[in-house]
């Protein structure tokens, strides 16, 4: 049964997205290979524009296709009048998102890698408990619409994540890091070595005073600055008028050293793909260049509402209609070597990880978070881990003046590429 044809017969525009994926997960719990899991997922989602109104339906039950037809048309009868146009076929960039080496990883090989990670960490921290989760999969996505789009592509996501719990008396240290990729990465142990470095640094506990001081955000820590920006750059928040930077394209909002790019066209990265989830070719979108706001992220609907073109950021799960989201988000590296940045700090804080990311009124740019992993920097050296402190600020104020951005960048949590960012002064509240 050709669903698209059936829908086309009843609606002006129609789109059918089919998803099929298989994944294998190996879980180490408390240093031991405890669980293995196989997941098979399949489903179909449809959108129609009927009498100018948009409808949506999704199902993971392939036997419920008759309901798909009825429900998507019913949904459209209530739907919003949006000037959306499903795209014409367009050439997409060549993006490598499938590497046969990943589906070829056997369970035995995954277990071996997991053990290698556990062994590396246990060698430096024998009392730690390590939980490792290795997940490799194959996803097949097919997007069709009445305008002739027949976009289909395969991805081979691999993620390896490790959590280390170290308890000494009443001191609890929990560290997490991960690798996320769609191309086999020979240096798959890099993230585990970073965990080891942090564990070693965290052995010494020290204290820090409350007050104002320079703060250095690591690539994982700088997410606290990136998250409010992602909200402000989201076309949906621009269209609805809640983004504080909605009308500031072309204005210099941030320090020269701030450049932000969304790019799903990079080979082998975690969020890479030739097309977005609406069949629009992916592209590289510069959002902020040397502090100047260049644009926002749009999907088809928010682009149509705003009278602009989709930037290819339509993102969806099976059961939700698309919305604009970042793909691989890159905060561009700067010119200063990290070592030089640290060496130049007389008294300051290195923020590696924060608690409660995204809580609070982040659309305004404001954040306030306790730190789950932070180090004190004294006279140009990292001297120890500090606990029980909080930082707060507003990214739209803080990023106006940036002391330095590191030359080094790291891919963290899958699709984020971040440098170290040094801010001249923030207020630290410490317990005591």
């Amino acid at each position, binding site marked *: 049964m050709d669903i698209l044809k059936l829908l086309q017969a009843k609606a002006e525009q129609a789109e059918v997205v089919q998803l099929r994926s298989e994944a294998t997960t190996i879980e180490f719990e408390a240093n031991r290979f405890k669980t293995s899991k196989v997941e098979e*997922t*399949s489903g179909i989602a449809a959108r129609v524009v009927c009498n100018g109104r948009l409808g949506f339906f999704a199902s*993971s039950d392939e036997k419920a296709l008759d309901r798909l037809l009825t429900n998507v048309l*019913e949904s459209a009868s209530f739907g919003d009048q949006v000037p959306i146009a499903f795209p014409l076929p367009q050439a997409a960039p060549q993006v490598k998102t499938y590497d046969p080496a990943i589906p070829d990883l056997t369970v035995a090989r995954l277990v071996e890698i997991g053990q290698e990670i556990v062994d590396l960490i246990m060698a430096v921290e024998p009392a730690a408990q390590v939980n490792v989760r290795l997940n490799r999969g194959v996803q097949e996505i097919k997007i069709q619409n009445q305008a002739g789009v027949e976009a289909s592509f395969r991805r081979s996501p691999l993620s390896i994540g490790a959590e280390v719990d170290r308890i000494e008396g009443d001191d609890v240290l929990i560290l997490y890091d991960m690798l996320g990729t769609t191309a086999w990465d020979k240096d798959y142990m890099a993230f585990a070595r970073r965990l080891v470095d942090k564990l070693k640094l965290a052995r010494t506990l020290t204290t820090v005073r409350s007050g104002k001081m320079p703060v250095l955000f690591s690539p994982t820590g700088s997410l606290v600055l990136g998250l409010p920006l992602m909200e402000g750059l989201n076309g949906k928040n621009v269209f609805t008028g809640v983004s*504080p930077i909605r009308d500031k394209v072309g204005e210099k909002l941030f320090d020269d050293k701030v450049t932000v790019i969304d790019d799903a066209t990079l080979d082998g990265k975690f969020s890479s793909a030739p097309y977005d989830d609406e069949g629009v070719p992916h592209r590289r979108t510069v959002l902020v260049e040397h502090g100047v706001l260049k644009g926002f992220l749009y999907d088809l609907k928010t682009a149509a509402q705003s009278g602009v073109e989709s930037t290819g950021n339509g993102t969806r799960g099976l059961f939700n209609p698309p919305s604009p989201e970042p793909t691989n988000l890159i905060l561009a590296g700067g010119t200063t070597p990290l070592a030089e940045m640290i060496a130049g700090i007389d008294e300051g804080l290195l923020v590696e990880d924060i608690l409660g990311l995204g809580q609070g009124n982040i659309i305004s740019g404001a954040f*306030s978070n306790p730190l789950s992993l932070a180090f004190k920097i004294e006279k140009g050296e990292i001297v120890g881990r500090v606990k029980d402190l*909080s930082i707060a600020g507003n990214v739209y104020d803080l990023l106006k003046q940036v002391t330095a951005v590191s030359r080094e960048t790291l891919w963290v949590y899958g699709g984020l590429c971040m440098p170290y960012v040094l801010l001249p002064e923030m207020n630290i509240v410490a317990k005591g």
Partner: protein
Amino acid sequence: MRDRIEAALKSSRADYTEIRIEQRDATTVAFRGRNLEEASAVVDTGGIVRSLCRNNGWGVVTFNSLDGLTARVEQAYQCARAAHSEQPIALAPVPAAQEQISASLDAKHDFRGISMADKKALAESYNKIMLTFSDRIVDTQTHYGDSFTRLTFASSDGTFIEEERPMVSMVASAIARDGDNVQSAHETRSGQRGFDFVQGCEQLARTAAQRAVDLLGAETVAGGQYPVVIDPVLAGVFIHEAFGHLSESDFVYENPKAKEMMVLGRRFGQDHLTVFDDGSIPGLRGTHRYDDEGTPTRRNDLIKNGILVGRLHSRETAAKMGEPLTGNARAINYRHPPIVRMTNTAIQPGTTSFEEMIQGIKLGIYAIDAYGGQTALENFSFSSGYAHMIRDGKIAEMVKDVILAGNLFTTLLNIDAIGSDFRWINHAGGCGKGGQFPLPVAFGAPHVRIQDVVIGGK
């Protein structure tokens, strides 16, 4: 279906096997500002087989097509055989249950019988209240959701449970703007109830809009350490984050150092502090007769008069620690195996009135409502929706961006007053852990006063 499930279980070569099949129908109506963003229904059908080979480990298989159950059972067995746990894994015994649990929605209010037009009209009416509340309300999000899950759980221990799980929710968020100052506020309501549960919520929409507008005039809190009075909503989130997650024994059962830290009998609070989790209270979001391993739910005291007295278990953690079953193995859906989770977690009421609580405070904060919270076990964060300064024993000006930092070993001991005004909170959304989000839970608490809380700020 029952025959196929039982035949598949019988074919298993594992020491223990369970099968869970779900069929979920869900409706969503979402307004964003003046636009109807979504009015749609989805169907989600799938299943999970979980097998245990005592000397190896767990095997898990999830799928959408319900054909070939016996082959899935064999695949789960092969997965379990591949693992190599150090010590044999035991499961605490549960009595075999044979149950059919139907959703007690009366026909008139069963949301499956309500038309999409009526659901849309209801959401639209709340949305309109917020949009027309003030010209400073620039954006809204009004979200109506219902879902009806038919669940079958069967295990090789002889349990066979068929259960209907309904859930309805309404979320109203208002965003107010004044120049570059953007503030948001939200109100929610959710329960295992019928359509009538989310009717008549006009006040909820007005409250959200009013608060968003009020927050435009609020100053950002000055960072520092304060005595803080938290309302029942924030106190509920607080006890969930501050302590609840620590009492989930999957964090403890394989970790000797965690066991030492969380040894039963240790003091965590003053004598007036009693904390419990209870998945058996009718009408709350986290309530079910059985957990997702077929263990009956019940009340479990966690802290009694300040002393740690219990923790939450799955069949595996209870067996490993030699402690009684609590009925806390839960899964958000068929894509995940059950893990140790909270249900409805609460601070037992005390005797202090709200007036007594704020009376003696020269400079402090009254923090109300919650955006959420996160824990790294020893340290945690919980954020208020809005707050007021307390000056000379009186509620004073509104402040914003009040996010509280806590430490397990000091913050609970610093609770020095517990109110008598207990209530249960059934908010939409839920708890996240191990990639499983959102799990429906409820919180319960009265007003609570905590000394020396770290609050980040300028």
